[in-house]
């Protein structure tokens, strides 16, 4: 009790990540760092070397006799159901039996005494393939008559035909938006330890321990209660560990039970990148009609996605692309359709924004198209189309936008970043500078918060107060670097009014909180913070009741002060009250629960209120482009982002900065490149280029909109922060586009696809030659 006035780690204050010291000393334990029990075996995946084929036969003789090999697992070794599809579609086997459907698809797993032995042996299989034609992207797939992996979504409001008829301008165009590898620094890993009966415990790196648990039970053919999944922390997730761990957990668990030995599986980086899904690439057709002022009258959009060979999460991902195809703009008449195409590539999955960013990119591209067509500053076109009052507040999915703060947010950023002045200076600079051209763009983000699968919007927690006054905190969320555990512990510290250090943060485990949702959709602190608060309040209520009875005061006279409790006229240490409560046999443990109110969604009708609220943000970026080579650099970025009343401003700022850079990487240097055979050739950091420190904007100002308070009753009126700032990176893309457009005097909207690599930038400049 160093300070009687305030507690350490209070909500709304900066607090370092709870593991910060362990991170910097190397003592933070990741799954691969857990001491291996004697007898641990290692698994490695053998994969397909063609993109599409019937499997006529697999000869594993050489694999089995290789040094150190103990066993080889195939589909025949799956005791339960050979399926790990996260949505129950049964379209994703652990190991295929008849067909391989992408280059690099896991076909079997080698179990050996060492990882090295397993890895070497995995190369030795002889597979007899009957090769079939393949389709790698949504356009090829559609031509080849491939099916969709899941039902498409249609969002419709108003009358697009009528809206178009009245509008003086119309632009129809297509844009390709590339995918993205998660490139979490810690790759996938699962470590299964067999127990008695049917039990197995799996330590792994996942955002969704409950799903890993259910999937392991499913493939083992046992009840969920036989399987325990533990996650202390991940070395990054970003959506890549929401469903993609299923395979690794399943293989490790099957092998562990079969051999009654611990089994660890850790693919190398190349296999991690080729065998697990990524952000969906999209081919987007847009058709936008608008008036002379740049006000949109009608939008029709087709969103075809490279989903890969199975559905995985492609249904909700492509849905979310449509949910965000309006970004911040009111479309009076709108028709949006998704086309989740099957392709012979790895099955794409969740990635920060979950399809939303692709929708937002399309919305921003339409704004740019309009601006170039009318010769306007794109910011004016943006402002002309923002959601507004009654009559201009309905989204394409018929939810009202009631918490719009973009006018203020954009206004402040525009002023702080001196957007107008700099844009004029840049236009003047471009007149003089022959080779180096500059561009600037200010783009907004509006992002809907809640899982669109309504039942996912629930969470649980478990809090114990021990009789020495120390507190054990557990909840269903997982820690992947975002500081969720820190924030939830702050909420609990605040509730009990005890120092942060009193709270022990523990690993996420399916043993303590069941049936959890993925830590995804930016929902981690919204859901788990509320669930933890519920548990804390239950214990506080019991302590209050006990104190009132014992000291013969009313419950209103019991007040939790920093590290102590006022009971009537007396102030006693928190520890003392806890000890007294224990002696009086008060229950000092509670399970908490929370479900998000108000939300509902009718997918068939395309109507409802899928989101509890919206988070907003905006960024302004300036770039320089070398028009001889297409090389560029980001000169300056200013960000103003809305996190409501922040639970922890410094952690939120870290999320905003990191998301911006990741979003910028997606739209600039991060390129996924498949060769004609369907092999992903950018499958490690040597070939797949995420941003470096030197790619940061030369001037980088990030601010939280400190005045913002969530209108909805979220945890301490904060807002979700994981995904929304990812889309702030779009300002870099549009600034590059402006620099390109300057070579044709801004009269033509450049045909620039994402990612805007130096090559795409140069080629867009070439295309403009002779125009404008």
């Amino acid at each position: 009790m160093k300070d009687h006035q305030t507690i350490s780690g209070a909500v709304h204050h900066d607090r370092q990540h709870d593991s910060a010291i362990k991170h910097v000393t190397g003592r933070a334990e990741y799954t691969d760092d857990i001491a291996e029990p004697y007898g641990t075996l290692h698994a490695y995946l053998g994969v397909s070397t063609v993109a599409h084929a019937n499997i006529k036969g697999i000869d594993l003789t050489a694999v089995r006799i290789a040094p150190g090999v103990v066993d080889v697992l195939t589909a025949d070794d799956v005791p339960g159901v050979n399926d790990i599809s996260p949505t129950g579609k049964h379209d994703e086997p652990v190991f295929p039996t008849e067909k391989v459907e992408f280059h690099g698809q896991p076909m079997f797993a080698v179990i050996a005494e060492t990882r090295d032995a397993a890895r070497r042996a995995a190369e030795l299989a002889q597979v007899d393939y009957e090769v079939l034609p393949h389709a790698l992207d949504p356009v090829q797939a559609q031509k080849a008559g491939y099916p969709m992996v899941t039902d498409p979504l249609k969002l419709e409001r108003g009358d697009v035909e009528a809206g178009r008829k009245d509008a003086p301008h119309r632009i129809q165009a297509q844009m390709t938006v590339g995918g993205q590898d998660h490139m979490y620094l810690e790759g996938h890993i699962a470590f299964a330890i067999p127990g008695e009966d049917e039990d197995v415990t799996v330590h792994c790196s996942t955002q969704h321990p409950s799903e890993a648990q259910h999937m392991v039970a499913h493939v083992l053919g046992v009840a969920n209660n036989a399987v325990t999944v533990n996650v202390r922390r991940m070395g990054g997730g970003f959506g890549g560990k929401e469903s993609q761990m299923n395979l690794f957990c399943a293989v490790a668990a099957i092998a562990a039970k079969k051999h009654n030995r611990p089994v660890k599986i850790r693919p190398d980086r190349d296999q991690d990148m080729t065998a697990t899904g990524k952000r969906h690439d999209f081919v987007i057709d847009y058709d936008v009609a608008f008036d002379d002022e740049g006000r949109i009258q009608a939008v029709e959009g087709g969103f075809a996605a490279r989903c890969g060979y199975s559905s995985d999460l492609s249904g909700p991902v492509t849905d979310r692309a449509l949910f965000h195809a309006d970004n911040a703009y009111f479309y009076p008449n709108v028709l949006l359709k998704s086309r989740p195409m099957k392709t012979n590539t790895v099955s794409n999955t969740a990635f920060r924004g979950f399809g939303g960013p692709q929708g937002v990119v399309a919305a921003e591209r339409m704004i740019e198209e309009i601006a170039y067509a009318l010769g306007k500053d794109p910011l004016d076109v943006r402002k002309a189309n923002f959601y507004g009052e009654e009559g201009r507040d309905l989204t394409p999915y018929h939810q009202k936008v009631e918490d719009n703060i973009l006018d203020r947010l954009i206004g402040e950023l525009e002023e702080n970043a001196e957007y107008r002045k700099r844009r004029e200076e840049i236009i003047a600079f471009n007149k003089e500078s022959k080779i180096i051209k500059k561009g600037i763009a200010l783009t907004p983000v509006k992002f809907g918060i809640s899982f669109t699968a309504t039942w996912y919007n629930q969470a649980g927690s478990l809090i114990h107060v021990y009789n020495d006054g120390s507190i054990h905190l557990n909840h269903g969320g997982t820690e992947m670097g975002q500081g969720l555990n820190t924030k939830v512990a702050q909420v609990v510290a605040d509730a009990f009014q005890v120092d942060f250090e009193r709270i022990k943060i523990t690993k996420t485990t399916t043993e303590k909180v069941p049936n959890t949702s993925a830590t995804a959709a930016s929902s981690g602190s919204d859901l788990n913070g509320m669930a933890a608060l519920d548990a804390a309040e239950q214990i506080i209520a019991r302590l209050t009741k006990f104190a009132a009875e014992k000291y013969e005061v009313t419950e209103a006279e019991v007040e939790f002060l920093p590290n102590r409790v006022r009971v009537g006229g007396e102030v006693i240490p928190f520890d003392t009250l806890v000890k007294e409560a224990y002696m009086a046999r008060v229950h000092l443990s509670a399970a908490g629960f929370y479900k998000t109110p108000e939300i509902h969604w009718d997918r068939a009708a395309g109507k409802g209120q899928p989101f509890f609220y919206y988070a907003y943000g905006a960024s302004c970026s300036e770039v320089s482009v070398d028009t001889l080579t297409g090389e560029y650099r980001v000169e300056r970025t200013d960000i103003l982002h809305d996190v409501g009343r922040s639970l922890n401003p410094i952690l939120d700022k870290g999320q905003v900065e990191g998301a911006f850079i990741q979003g910028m990487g997606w739209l600039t240097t991060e390129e996924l490149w498949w060769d004609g055979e369907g092999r992903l050739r950018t499958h490690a950091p040597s070939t797949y280029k995420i941003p470096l420190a030197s790619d940061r904007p030369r001037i980088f100002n990030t601010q939280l909109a400190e005045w913002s308070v969530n209108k909805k009753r979220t945890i301490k009126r904060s807002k979700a922060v994981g995904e929304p700032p990812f889309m702030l990176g779009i300002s870099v893309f549009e600034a590059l586009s402006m620099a390109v457009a300057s070579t044709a005097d801004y009269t033509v909207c450049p045909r620039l696809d994402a990612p805007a690599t130096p090559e795409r930038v140069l080629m867009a400049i070439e295309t403009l030659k002779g125009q404008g």
Partner: protein
Amino acid sequence: MEHQHDIRFLLNGREHSVKDVKATTTLLDFLRLEQRLTGTKEGCAEGDCGACTVLVGRLHNSALRYEAVNACIRFLASLNGCHVVTVEHLSGPNGRLHPVQQAMVEYHGSQCGFCTPGFVMSLYALWMENPQPTEAQVETAVQGNLCRCTGYEPIVKAALAVNQYGTPANDYLTTERNSLTAKLKAIQPETRVVTGPEDDRAILPLDAADLADVLAENPKATIVAGSTDVGLWVTKFMKPISPVVFVAHLEELKAVELTDEALIIGAGVTYTESEDAIRDAFPHLGDYWDRIAGWQVRNMGTIGGNIANGSPIGDTPPVLISLGAEVTLQKKGGSRTLPLEDFFIDYGKQDREPGDFVASIRIPLRRDGQIDAAYKISKRRDEDISSVAAGVSVTVADGVITSARIAFGGMAATPKRAAGAEAALVGQPWGEAAFDAAAEAVKQDFTPLSDWRASAEYRALSASNLLRRFYLENEGGTAGAVRLAVA
């Protein structure tokens, strides 16, 4: 004399002698699997993410020097006589954080924490060498470290603040420098070191003469200097490379000599070791040198290795060829010298006979009227492999181009001169017309490939445009800046 059969080194505070070290055992596997020093992480196993960064201290010209290296592609056997420092050794025995660690905590430089030990080690190396770096120097020091969470901003701020939390003078590696030096001196080999099983044999020759002997005895041996490429043959491709002859420790291959006519660089000199001499003699290579891989790789990789490897996309051959460099090959009983461009015969084929090793590179100094440039185009500015690399050296006398040497990487199966572009320039007056002609001619000089780094069209167009850039940035006109600013 009986050979030494163990690898002797210091690991953090302890001396180790490990017998039967396989040539292909990496330092990272040794740390994580055998020593359970799990603070050092595997992120990519190819030297591109930096999660495995450790410090290696070695005696160089009798002084002890520490450098950040990638443990994932560093072979344990190459560490004979070295001091390995891992993240576990940074905080004091009382648990007190090291200044670098303290700064990273204070500035919120970690989120998921997996890349953090690697950043801590790179920043440790930077702080020891340069306790008050500029932002640009920080960025250069962490070129080889990827972070996917923070966007780097807090890490850079932490790096700039380290010195507030302590100075290198009080650091263990400074205060103990003398005793560590003595300990390392005591374990320097006196004979050849031969270790590992028959099929995974590591050989460390005692000196250059012994190297010639070893290669005469093992003409098919794999010569490994920095292991920044061969490391991947092992970690990525699981290729057998036995027997392996390690050469990075050979002082004779580490000479950097400046004569009146040339700069001569030993084949074992790393990019980092050659940096100052290169910058002084060839200022145009300064920024280019910083864009070769990341810092950890520059601390290990050698110019000799970059050449001997024969890759068409190595960064140094084009710029060395344009400067008229020659390579000296040595073997037992003799040596020969040839123009560097002649060393590259075809894809995967170099003019290197069994028993030959690359001994040194001779780069003629610049002459009056010589204008040089080095260009690298890559998807990402730093720590990337070039789509196109170019060295351009043009000599102008009395307004006339008297000689032109233009070499490209990434445009053909080998690093190659652009004969047509050179011909278009020589004899012409310095001016836009000559360079327009060269920019057109260079399109005929090459038939580049399309791959994941760049398309053939982009390679051809940007190669051509680089010659226009060369003209524009040397003509002193008023077109404004021609190249993006660096820092």
